């Protein structure tokens, strides 16, 4: 009963539009007219011959492969580092969370500034240690790094989850381990990480989805696919097709591919995890 409003909203606002969208994938819908014709697998054939799609796929996969572990590392590392109660601890945590509340557009604009090769604080910081810096958004690799760097900051939700999960662990276990001769590092390796494993898996899955699909606005504003399509992530590519190049149906097809890829990656993650037997 309580789930009803939400359920209705999900059906109306997500399931139904998504289904419609899937339907469009096999038409010639451009988004501009309202009489899409069924064209079967023509879009699929086009996709298979599309070099730009491959670039885009590569960009996305690279991004996920680097960004998810880094974001996780940051969220978990900081979560664990700052979990222990200490005077002023809340303010440290607040500082870590704050970038998460910056609106996407503002974050991207801010990073346009941070990554500015001559005036940007990042290169200036590098200058302090004698490094000439990079033209961040001009080189394919550094542009990707720049986007990853930007997305390393809004990790607040994962951070909070780790904080909370860490606090839920029984302090007794740590005392028991200490009595058995286990130092801080051993406690991290033998207690904290294994015990947090279910939460970490959840975070990885969530972050994978998010990274693949939703961190769209900042990447879009920061680089818009440049340079040389190095940051033409799948959502950006979908957006361009669906909304700029009148390729609505084609965009819909890539959307399906994106969902499939997400599902495959997540399944792979879960299978790996099962092999490690961290979840019973």
């Amino acid at each position, binding site marked *: 009963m*309580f*789930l009803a*409003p*939400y359920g209705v*909203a*999900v059906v109306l*606002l*997500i399931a139904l*539009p*998504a289904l*419609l*969208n899937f339907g469009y994938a096999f038409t010639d819908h451009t988004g501009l007219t309202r009489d899409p014709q069924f064209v079967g697998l023509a879009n699929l054939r086009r996709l298979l011959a599309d070099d730009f799609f491959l670039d885009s796929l590569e960009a996305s996969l690279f991004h996920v492969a680097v960004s998810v572990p880094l974001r996780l590392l940051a969220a978990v590392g*900081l979560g664990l*580092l*700052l979990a*222990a109660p*200490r005077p002023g*601890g*809340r*303010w*440290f*945590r*607040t500082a*870590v*969370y*704050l*970038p998460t*509340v*910056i*609106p*996407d*557009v*503002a974050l991207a*604009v*801010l*990073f346009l*500034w*941070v990554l*500015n090769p*001559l*005036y940007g604080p990042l290169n200036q*910081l590098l*200058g302090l240690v004698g490094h000439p810096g990079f033209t961040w958004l001009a080189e394919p690799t550094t542009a990707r790094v720049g986007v990853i760097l930007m997305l390393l*900051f809004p990790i607040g939700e994962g951070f*909070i989850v780790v904080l*909370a999960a860490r*606090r*839920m662990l029984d302090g007794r276990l740590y005392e028991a381990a200490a009595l058995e001769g286990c130092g801080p590092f051993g406690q991290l390796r033998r207690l904290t990480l294994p015990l947090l494993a279910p939460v970490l898996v959840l975070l990885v899955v*969530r972050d994978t989805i998010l990274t693949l*699909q*939703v961190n*769209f*606005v900042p990447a879009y504003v920061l680089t818009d696919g440049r340079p040389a399509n190095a940051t033409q992530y799948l*959502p950006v590519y*979908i957006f361009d097709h*669906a*909304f700029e190049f009148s390729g609505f149906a084609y965009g819909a097809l890539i*959307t399906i591919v994106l*969902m499939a890829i*997400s599902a495959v990656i997540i399944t792979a993650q879960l299978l790996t995890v099962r092999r490690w037997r961290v979840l019973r």
Partner: protein
Amino acid sequence: MISRLIGRFVVPALFAALFAAPLWFMAVGSLRPVGLPPPRTLEIFPPDPTVAAYTRLPELMPLFRYLANSALVVALAVPLTVVVASLTGFGLRLLASSARRRVTIGLLVVLLVPVTAVWATRFELFRLAGVVDTYIPLLAPAMLAGSPFLVLLYAWSFGGVPNTQLEAARLEGARWIAIWRRVALPQVRPATLAVAVLAFTFHWANFIDPLLYLHSGDRYTYALGLQFLRLLNPTDWPLLMAGCVIATAPCVLVFLLAQRILLNDNPLVALRSGGRR
């Protein structure tokens, strides 16, 4: 002792500073005089700070109208988000654990649907409902409780209300909705505050929905307005940063209210405690 101090304070402080740095640069950048070439060396604080950028903003766009619109949207959407999230979280809480796991997986699947997949097709729905160019489409994310995270936050918090209390209330003749409102909600006020804050930042920053579903320029929200600034005179970094500061400041202020709970030494206890006080 020293190493303990480093471990406990210096390292965390370094990370905190790292994460606070972007905001600092944003604020500092907005205080530079308009039109001045940017500095080529690291500048922790501008030599002669000025608020000129802020005073120029209202000249360039209907700043206060946009802000008022944003405020209106937030004022509508945040309560709705809280209601939906708490109802759903409560519903989730009442489910047996196996059903709960299934619904949680369902939430993840919902996350799996790319946003791009629903933008245009949702429009059709809104047109059928006749609500295009009203604020109702902007409330759609609120109907979805902002994000599954908020639902789970509530489910988590309600987990602290023992079954027996709910049953006691039922025996005393309370309907479920009354139990939700009079027994469960008052016990998770901190969670409500936290959800409200997160919902605030979400709706305040929402950029795509207003772009797609609002037509009238005088209904635009501030997130859209910020876009117009991006096209302005590119030497106007201070102006752009001032725009960002205005976009960010309400979120930061509101968040500072909630950090007491969300970032408490013991967030779970903080979320669940506080029936009163």
